[in-house]
């Protein structure tokens, strides 16, 4: 996975401060699992203990541990990944175009989780 640092040089800067803020949104019924709040602001460490950047995988773990109050974790995550049927958009693009759970988060990224599993 290559990062586009040459296109987006600012992305490296906030690391100096040691944290990285992203916006996370839950829609399509998923907000029910996250205190009925659609938008959440999440601040992650810019570098992990292994020296790597936080990825979507890291974010998922973080969300389940720190943001999700609902006990039914399996409605959001299955086998360490997003439950099939939940779409992930990274800055409005399907995460499949961005490397899925291996995508490395950039400052001010907007990550949207949309459930397709809920009815009307």
């Amino acid at each position, binding site marked *: *996975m*290559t990062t*586009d640092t040459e296109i987006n040089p600012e992305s490296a800067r906030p690391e100096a401060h040691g944290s990285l803020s992203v916006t996370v949104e839950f*829609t*399509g*019924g998923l907000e*029910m699992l996250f205190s009925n709040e659609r938008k959440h602001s999440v601040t992650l460490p810019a570098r992990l203990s292994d020296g790597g950047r936080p990825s979507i995988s890291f974010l998922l773990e973080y969300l389940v541990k720190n943001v999700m109050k609902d006990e*039914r974790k399996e*409605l959001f995550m299955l086998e360490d990944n997003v439950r*099939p*049927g939940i*779409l992930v*958009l990274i800055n*409005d*693009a*399907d995460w*499949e*175009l*961005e*490397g899925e759970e291996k*995508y490395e988060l950039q400052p001010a990224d907007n990550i*949207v989780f*949309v*459930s*397709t*599993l*809920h*009815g*009307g």
Partner: protein
Amino acid sequence: MAPSPCFHCQTNRAVIIRPKNREKLCRTCFINVFETEVHETITSTSLFYPGERVAIGASGGKDSTVLASVLKTLNERYNYGLDLCLLSIDEGIKGYRDDSLETVKRNAEQYEMPLEIVGYDELYGWTMDQVVAQVGKKGNCTYCGVFRRQALDRGAARLGIKHVVTGHNADDVAETVMMNLLRGDLPRLSRGTSIVTDSAASDIKRSKPLKYAYEKEIVLYAHHKQLDYFSTECIYSPEAFRGSARTLIKDLEKIRPSSILDIVKSGEDMAELVPAEIKGKACARAADDESTGGCGSQNGRTRGGEMAEMEKKLADDEAAESREVEIKLPAQSVPLPRKKQNKGIKGSTQKTIKTQTMGTCERCGYISSQKICKACTLLEGLNKNRPKTAIEVGVGLEDEESSSTLMRQMERVQLGG
């Protein structure tokens, strides 16, 4: 990862990757392709005629909202000449349907379509809240399903409309195909895959213009067009979306996204092979199958239960088969009787095709193969304050799996939960 350009326009940044063919498209091209494909489905099946009045079964959820939006767009773009309106059902569930009906009311304004709401209370004298207060949460989905089936037809009849479109998508159809395949239910398999499910016994036809549209693309279409839809779970079956048939479909999609349309295609091809006499003898109307899955919430639970039941039956069959070797061997040289013999042995799983004559309910005049339709039978029980087991006997043989099986599933779900 470097951004990919759109496969179509080669200019804009691709934001979606299509499940059916892995094409990467930008927002504008995706919306365009999605609409064009629905248009192709509509024209290739001659779904509508100019001047036709069409009611869109609207729940406020993603599927029906996208259907309303796309039909409005196509009607204007291609001059279908359709007279569109929204038809909603109010089951009378506070904190669930009242919220989603607000969404439908906004949609009616946004799409400039008249809206008709048909309430269980006015049709049957009972809201679902009242039904649940009487029968409890166990088994209440049966009432809701039976009532809904009639309510859409009655709402359409009230408007003098003979065509109701619903938001069933490719994932729904694939799920139905899988279920009917596992049940060995050929009549339902053949009916469930067709885009139009009308019945000789009813003058109101139902169709699903989104039958080839992936649920994923429907959700993305709603997202990128910023459509106003409501997602919720029925408060009376809150864990419904864990249905195992649904899970299976979604798992398959994850591994091989084209699976969903492939299952739909296989279902259609298999339907072609179903002999006409079996199709013809199909009991009740195909809409029955849909009405059980009509509400997103019931979807998962009901079908999940059915799936578990089917898995158990299949396992039982297998076990039975191994014990039946000697019975079956002599018949092997004569293919036809063997088939029959098998049927006899597995009597409990093989459904015998019944010839049913459609008539009308003596009480309400709705189409029914029985003297008294199922809604009236359920109502009789409610009104007499009788437990649901009495009703189950009263329903008899009509629609075997949607009545007695559903009852059993509900028991199972209750025990499991």
